[in-house]
């Protein structure tokens, strides 16, 4: 279709019997964009990726890669490379064999296969491993080889299906950086499925948050973090999760959020479309947007409570604070000197808050 899109998905539907796994899904991915599909398990993110790859037959709708309608095209003819969670290296072939298998199937001449394999191996620094079998590789080396298999195809689009989930934390962080560098270097379109919000935030140009076969929000990591489109997204992103107050937006002397015997002023809150509303609502504030100590004194909203639980993380300290029978998570400085049972004042700014209407849980 339009050349500026690398991938374009129109009204995609997939159902297994009565179960709709993907519901009328539309998505455009720009050329060279790094798009992350994020969601908890069962949200349809991997299913969507498999549909793009042609590994699942869609029930309805169309998929375009570049300008071609590939809805019914074979996976190998779609111009994609794919990297899997379990690496999916062919155990009986060497790394070189794994890399060249697809090229041989495509009938490429031998010298070209060799050249491509060597180039990919060089980029990924796996040249010394080429003659080894997958069983003789470490987890990180296996995943590099698996990326290499996608690389040799010279594909316009790379699909990653939770590629780092099987690795330990340290390796995962290292390979995450490598994948990001690879994207900068190759600048092809990449679609990356994960349930790890850190991977999503660090890698993505845009994140699509999925739930129940639909995309809830498609935006930059920044936007998703700061202006989540609904309560689900707000809860999904951020750890510990956002604190919520269940109350009502009332008018009168300036707009206020009434909860219990408090009334939080809402001046400075950026209503959607600048349209202030009243009625039952959720008031959400992230733990890291709460302040304590002297900063709390000057905050627009102040609550006093008692520390219930302290989790020192080194860089930060997390504290659970009981306020009027409600528990709030607060992120504090790593050097904060607090203990269970301390009385504490927490403060926050309405400009940092997120309001969601009670009925649809959409952002206000």
């Amino acid at each position: 279709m339009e050349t500026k899109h690398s991938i374009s998905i129109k009204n995609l539907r997939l159902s297994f019997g009565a179960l709709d796994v993907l519901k009328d899904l539309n998505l455009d991915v720009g050329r060279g964009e790094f798009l992350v599909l994020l969601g908890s398990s069962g949200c349809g993110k991997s299913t969507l990726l498999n549909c793009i790859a042609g590994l699942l037959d869609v029930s309805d709708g169309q998929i375009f890669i570049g300008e071609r309608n590939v809805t019914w095209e074979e996976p190998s003819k779609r111009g994609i490379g794919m990297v899997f969670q379990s690496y999916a290296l062919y155990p009986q072939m060497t790394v070189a064999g794994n890399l060249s298998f697809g090229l041989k199937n495509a009938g490429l001449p031998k010298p070209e296969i060799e050249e491509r394999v060597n180039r990919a191996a060089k980029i990924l620094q796996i040249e010394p491993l080429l003659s080894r079998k997958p069983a003789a590789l470490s987890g990180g080396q296996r995943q590099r080889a698996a990326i290499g298999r996608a690389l040799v195809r010279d594909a316009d689009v790379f699909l990653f299906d939770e590629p780092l989930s099987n690795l330990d934390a340290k390796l995962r962080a290292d390979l995450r950086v490598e994948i990001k560098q690879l994207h900068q270097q190759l600048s092809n379109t990449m679609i990356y499925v994960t349930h790890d919000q850190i991977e999503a935030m660090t890698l993505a140009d845009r994140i699509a948050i999925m739930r129940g076969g639909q995309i809830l929000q498609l935006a930059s990591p920044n936007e998703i973090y700061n202006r989540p489109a609904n309560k689900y997204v707000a809860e999904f992103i951020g750890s510990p999760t956002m604190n919520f107050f269940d109350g009502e937006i009332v008018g009168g002397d300036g707009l206020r959020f009434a909860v219990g015997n408090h009334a939080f002023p809402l001046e400075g809150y950026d209503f959607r479309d600048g349209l202030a509303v009243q009625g039952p609502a959720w008031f959400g504030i992230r733990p890291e947007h709460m302040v304590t100590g002297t900063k709390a004194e000057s905050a627009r909203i102040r609550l006093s409570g008692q520390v219930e639980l302290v989790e020192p993380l080194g860089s930060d300290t997390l504290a659970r604070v009981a306020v009027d029978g409600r528990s709030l998570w607060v992120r504090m400085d790593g050097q904060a000197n607090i203990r269970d049972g301390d009385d504490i004042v927490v403060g926050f700014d309405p400009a940092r808050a997120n309001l969601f209407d009670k009925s649809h849980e959409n952002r206000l």
Partner: protein
Amino acid sequence: MAAATGPVRWHRNLSAKIAAIPMITTALVVFIGGTAWTVLYSFTSSKLLPREKFVGLAQYERLWSSSKWLISIENLAIYGVFSLVFSLLIGFMLAALLDQKIRFEDTFRTILLYPFALSFIVTGLAWQWILNPDFGIQHVVRSLGWESFSFDPLYDPDIVIYGILIAGLWQGTGLIMCLMLAGLRGIDEDIWKAAKIDGIPMWKTYIFIVIPMMRGIFITAIVLIASGIIKVYDLVVAQTGGGPGIASEVPAKYVYDAMFLSQNLGQGFAASTMMLLTVIIIVVPWAYLEFGGKRRG
């Protein structure tokens, strides 16, 4: 297997469909077609060759008034009940013994399972020889001084089926033991530890905790033994040839004899249909219990 609202593409998966032709043919032509044909022709008066002269239930009436068939059924029932009970009992007890972290476990298991590698013909002939009254056990015991000792199952019509049972159990219990052993090994070691901390005696742990946990293995074993019982044929042919007289006849042999020896196809078809009916009566309730709930979904 998405609902086909997309273009209908019969040639998608074409290779898989072509590759499955032998399976489809077997399933439809041999298994369904063959079974239906036999059931249908059991209502005819076929003798040497099948013919389409339908005589209603006449073949079945004849079958159930034939003493050979009635003895076959009785033998199958006796053999079936005892072989089921003893296979499970012996199989489980041997497996429990082998599961005591003993030395030479592999050797014992190899010895207990080797008869399963032998055919029923070999099994039957070996036990025919051991139970031979003139040379075998009876002869040996008598020559030791106990002159009146009598153990002659193969020539005594009243107990001949037990002689076959002995051979059948010898051949088949090793398999059940192996299954049970696999089941016992699949039970979490922590269960034993927990039972020990709770002070539950070993035999109680087996009966009230371990065996209920092995429900699946027991069902598999029962299905396996049961399908073996229905098929029992070679063993009888080799060990007794159905004798003495017709004392050790079994249904499978009745079918073979009717079809290929006495040129009485109709009887063979009726008898085999009765065998099928027996299997259905046993398998359908089991299948319903096992899968019935899920299939409704």
